[in-house]
C-alpha cells in the first residue's frame, strides 16, 4: 500500500520537472514527440505539403488539357500524373489532415490529457512520409510510376504495369498501417478517456463523426491491403486472382477494391460533417438543430456505405437484379445525408448569424457539397449512369464532394481552431481573399466539367476532340487560379504560426461552445491533466 503511494508520488514529482516551460527543442522534439498537439501539427503540415504536391500534378494535367493535341507530356506520363494525383490527394492530403485535426481536437473536446496510445501515435505519423517518398520515387524508376489510375484496376495494374508497381504496393501498405493505427488510437481514446460527465450523447459531433470514421477505417483498410497484395502476387509471383486464364476474374478486383473504396469515400466526408456541425452553431449563436438525428444519420450513412460499392461498377456487366439492388441502396443514402443538410439549415434558421472566415467556408461547404450530393443522386440511377460513367460528369461530382466538400471543411476547421492553437487571430483580410479566390476559381474549375462530361468527354484522357476545347480552356484557367489561391492560405497560416496578429480570448469566437474553448489560448502543451467535470 505504501509502495503504491510512493510510486504515485514519484510520478507526480517526475511530472513537475516536465512542466510547460520544458518543451523539448529542435528536430528531436518532432521526431520523438508523443504529444497529441505536436503530432496533430505534424499531420496537418504533412497534409498541406502533400496537397501542394498533388496540386502541382493537377496543374500538369490541366496544362496538358489546356488545348487539344499533345503539348507538354506524353500520354504515359499523363496517366502517371492522374494516378499519383489521386493517390496523394486521398491518402496524403485529405486523410492525414483529418487525422491531424482528430489528434489536436479529440482529447481537447472530451477533456482527455492526450491520446490513449501516444507512442503508437508517433509511429503512425512517422511512417507516412516514408510511404509517400516511396510512392513519389517510383515516378523516377525506369518505366515510370503507377499509370493505372488510383483505382488500379487489374489487369492493367498487374500484367500490363511497369515494375515500379511493387513500390506502389509497398507504399499503400504503409499508408494502410498508418491509418489503422490512427483509427485504433481514436477509438481507444474516445472509449476510455472521456471526462466525467461526458456521456455519449453529450460528445461534440466532430468526436462522434470521427469515432464512426475510425470504425470504417478499421473495417476497410485491411480489404485494401488484401487487394494490393493480390495485385503484387499476380504481377510478381504467378498467381491468377484477377486473370481469367488462370481461373481468376478481373471484375473480382473491382468488387474488392470498391468494398474498400466506397466506405473510404465516407471516411473522407464524415469528419467534414462533424466540423461543419461545430462551426454552423457557433456563428449562428444557436444550438445545433437535431443533435441526436445527426448522430443517427452519421451511423446510418456508415452502415449503408457497406452495401453500395457496386454502384461504381454498373457497366461491368452485373445481373440486372444486382444492378437494381445497388441502385436502390445508393439512393437510400441521400435520406440521412439530406437530414444533415436540413439540420444545418434549421440551425441557421432564426439564429443570429455573422460571417467570419470559418463560417464562409462552412456555408460554401453546404451549398457546394449539396451540389455534389445531388449529382451523386443522379449517378445512382443505373440507366443514366451508363451515360455518365467514366466521363467528366463523374470527375465533377467527386471533386465537388472532395474539394469543395472535404477540403473546404478542412480549411474551415483550420480557420476555426487556428486562433486556439496559436493564440493569435489570423490575418482575416488575407483569409477572406483566400476564401473568395478559392470559391470563384473552384467553380470555374469544376462546374464546366459537368457540361463536358454530359457532352461525352471520357475521363483520364490526355487529348480530346475539338468540341470540348473551349470548356477545357476555362477549366484549366480555373485550375491554375485555384492552385495559386492556396498560396494565400499558406501565407495566412505561416503568419499565424509566427505569432503575428491580435491576441485572442479563451473563447475566441463569440458563440463558441465546448471544452476546447474553456482552456487558455494558445492551448498549453499539456491540457486537462486533471479531467474537467462536464455538467
Amino acid at each position, binding site marked *: 500500500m505504501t509502495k503504491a503511494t510512493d510510486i504515485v508520488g514519484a510520478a507526480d514529482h517526475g511530472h513537475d520537472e516536465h512542466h510547460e516551460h520544458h518543451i523539448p527543442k529542435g528536430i528531436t522534439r518532432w521526431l520523438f514527440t508523443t504529444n497529441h498537439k505536436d503530432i496533430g501539427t505534424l499531420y496537418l503540415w504533412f497534409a498541406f505539403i502533400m496537397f501542394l504536391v498533388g496540386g502541382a500534378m493537377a496543374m500538369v494535367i490541366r496544362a496538358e488539357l489546356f488545348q487539344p493535341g499533345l503539348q507538354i507530356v506524353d500520354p504515359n506520363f499523363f496517366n502517371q500524373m492522374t494516378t499519383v494525383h489521386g493517390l496523394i490527394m486521398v491518402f496524403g492530403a485529405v486523410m492525414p489532415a483529418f487525422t491531424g485535426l482528430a489528434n489536436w481536437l479529440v482529447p481537447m473536446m472530451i477533456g482527455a490529457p492526450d491520446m490513449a496510445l501516444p507512442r503508437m501515435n508517433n509511429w503512425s505519423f512517422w511512417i507516412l512520409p516514408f510511404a509517400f517518398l516511396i510512392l513519389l520515387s517510383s515516378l523516377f524508376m*525506369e518505366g515510370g510510376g503507377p499509370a493505372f489510375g488510383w483505382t488500379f484496376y487489374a*489487369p492493367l495494374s498487374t500484367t500490363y504495369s511497369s515494375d515500379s508497381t511493387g513500390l506502389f504496393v509497398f507504399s499503400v501498405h504503409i499508408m494502410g498501417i498508418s491509418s489503422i493505427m490512427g483509427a485504433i488510437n481514436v477509438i481507444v481514446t474516445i472509449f476510455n478517456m472521456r471526462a466525467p460527465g461526458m456521456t455519449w450523447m453529450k460528445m461534440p459531433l466532430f468526436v462522434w463523426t470521427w469515432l464512426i470514421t475510425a470504425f470504417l477505417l478499421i473495417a476497410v483498410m485491411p480489404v485494401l491491403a488484401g487487394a494490393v497484395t493480390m495485385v503484387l502476387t499476380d504481377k510478381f509471383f504467378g498467381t491468377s486472382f484477377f486473370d481469367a486464364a488462370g481461373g481468376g476474374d478481373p471484375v473480382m478486383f473491382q468488387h474488392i477494391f470498391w468494398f474498400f473504396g466506397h466506405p473510404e469515400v465516407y471516411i473522407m466526408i464524415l469528419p467534414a460533417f462533424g466540423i461543419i456541425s461545430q462551426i454552423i452553431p457557433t456563428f449562428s449563436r444557436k444550438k445545433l438543430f437535431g443533435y441526436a438525428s445527426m448522430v443517427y444519420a452519421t451511423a446510418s450513412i456508415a452502415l449503408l456505405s457497406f452495401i453500395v460499392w457496386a454502384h461504381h461498377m454498373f457497366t461491368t*456487366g452485373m445481373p440486372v437484379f444486382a444492378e*437494381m439492388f445497388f441502385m436502390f441502396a445508393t439512393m437510400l443514402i441521400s435520406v440521412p445525408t439530406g437530414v444533415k443538410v436540413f439540420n444545418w439549415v434549421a440551425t441557421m434558421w432564426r439564429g443570429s448569424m455573422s460571417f467570419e472566415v470559418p463560417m464562409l467556408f462552412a456555408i460554401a461547404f*453546404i451549398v457546394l457539397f449539396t451540389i455534389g450530393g445531388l449529382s451523386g443522386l*443522379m449517378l445512382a440511377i443505373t440507366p443514366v449512369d451508363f451515360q455518365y460513367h467514366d466521363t467528366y460528369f463523374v470527375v465533377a461530382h467527386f471533386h465537388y464532394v472532395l474539394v469543395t466538400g472535404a477540403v473546404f471543411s478542412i480549411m474551415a476547421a483550420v480557420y476555426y481552431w487556428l486562433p486556439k492553437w496559436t493564440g493569435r487571430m489570423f490575418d482575416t483580410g488575407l483569409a477572406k481573399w483566400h476564401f473568395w479566390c478559392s470559391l470563384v476559381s473552384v467553380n470555374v474549375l469544376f462546374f464546366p466539367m459537368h457540361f463536358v462530361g454530359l*457532352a461525352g468527354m471520357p475521363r483520364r484522357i490526355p487529348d*480530346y476532340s475539338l468540341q470540348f476545347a473551349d470548356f477545357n480552356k476555362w477549366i484549366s484557367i480555373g485550375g491554375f487560379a485555384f492552385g495559386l489561391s492556396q498560396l494565400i492560405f499558406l501565407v495566412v497560416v505561416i503568419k499565424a504560426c509566427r505569432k503575428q496578429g491580435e491576441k485572442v480570448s479563451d473563447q475566441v469566437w463569440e458563440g463558441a461552445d465546448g471544452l476546447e474553448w474553456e482552456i487558455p489560448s494558445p492551448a498549453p502543451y499539456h491540457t486537462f491533466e486533471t479531467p474537467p467535470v462536464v455538467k
Partner: protein
Amino acid sequence: MKRLTSSVTVVLAMLATSIFSSAFAVQTTEDGGALNLRRGVTDISGQVYDLHMLMFSICVVIAVVVFGAMFISMYLHRKSRGAKPANFHENVKVEIAWTVVPFLILIFMAVPAAKTLIAMEDTTQPDLTVQVTGSQWKWHYKYMDSDVEYYSLLATQQEQIANKFSKGENYLLEVDRPLVIPTGKKVRFLITSDDVIHSWWVPDFAVKKDANPGFINEAWTKVNEPGVYRGQCAELCGKDHGFMPIVVIAKEPAEYDAWMAEQEDIQRRAKEEEQRLLAMNMSMEEMMREGERVYNATCAACHMPSGEGLPGVFPALKGSPMVLQDINAHIDIVYNGKAGTAMQAFGKMLSLKDIAAVVTYERNAWGNNTGDLVQPKDVNAVATGN
C-alpha cells in the same frame, strides 16, 4: 455598415452560384448540344435522356428550396440586423417529415429507372450479333452471322496530334473501318477484350459496356435513323486510352445487305490473294515501304516510331537481339505474341504479307542493318509450324 455590405456580398455570391447552375437548366431545355446529354437515336437512349432530365429537374427543385431557405435565413437572421437567436433545437414532426418526404421522392424516381433498366438489359431475340473485342488500342468487330471480321483503328494522323497539321473536324473521333449495322434491327453486341479492360461506349445509343478479358458481356441497340455515330473507349486501358475511338454507321437494311455482300467478297478475294502471294517473292524496296506503313499503323504506338520503345514499359526494337538474331523467333513473336505481356498475337490482325513486310522493316530500319528480307511464305511456314 461594413458588416451589412459584407453579408450582402455573401448572399449575392451564393446566389450567383445557384444562377450558374440554373443557366445549365435553361441550356438543357434547348437540347443544347455541347452542354447536355444527347437524346440519341434509339428508343432506349430517348428514355435515358428523359430520365436524366427528370432527375436533373428534381435535383434543381431540391437545390432551389434548400438553398433558398438558407439564403433567406442568411439575409434575415443576421447579427448585424439585430437578429436574436431563437432557442429551438429539435422538432420531431419536422424531422420525421424531412426523412419521409425524400424517401417518397426516391420511390418516384426509382420506378421509371427500374423499368428502363430492365428494358436495357433484355438482350434476347436479336436480329444480328456482332462480337466486339477491345485490345490495346483498337477495336475488333466480328459479324457472327457471316465470315466478316476486321479491326478498327484511329484514323487521325499523328501529325495532327503532335500539332504539326491542323486538326480535322472529327479529330480523335475517326477510324479507318467503322462498324456498320442495319437500322430498325435489334443488334446484339458480345463484348470482350484481349488484354486489359476497355469499355465500348456510343453515347447516341446509350450503350456503355465494359470489355473484360476472359468474359463476355452483352448489350444491344436498335437504331432508328441512318447516320454516323461516334464514341470512345471509356475505361482507362493504358497509354493510348484516349486514342481508340468507336465509329458506327447505321445503314438502311437494303444498303446494309449490299455492304455486307461486298465485304464478304473483299474478304474472300483477300484470302485468294494471300494464297497467290505465298508463291511470290517481293523486292526489298517494296517490303520496306509496306513495312514502314504497317509498323507506323500497328507497332509504333508501343515500340515508338524510332524503334526505341519506352524503357521499362515497352522494349526497344532498335539494336534488340530479338530483331537482330533468329528470324523465325522474330516472326513467331509477331505472329503469336508473347503470353503475359502487352505483346499481342498479330497473326489474326495482319495479313501474311503485312507481317513479312513489318519483320523485314524492323530488321533493316534504325541501323538494324541485317539485310534480311522476309517473304510471306516464310511467315506462313512459322504460322503452320513447318
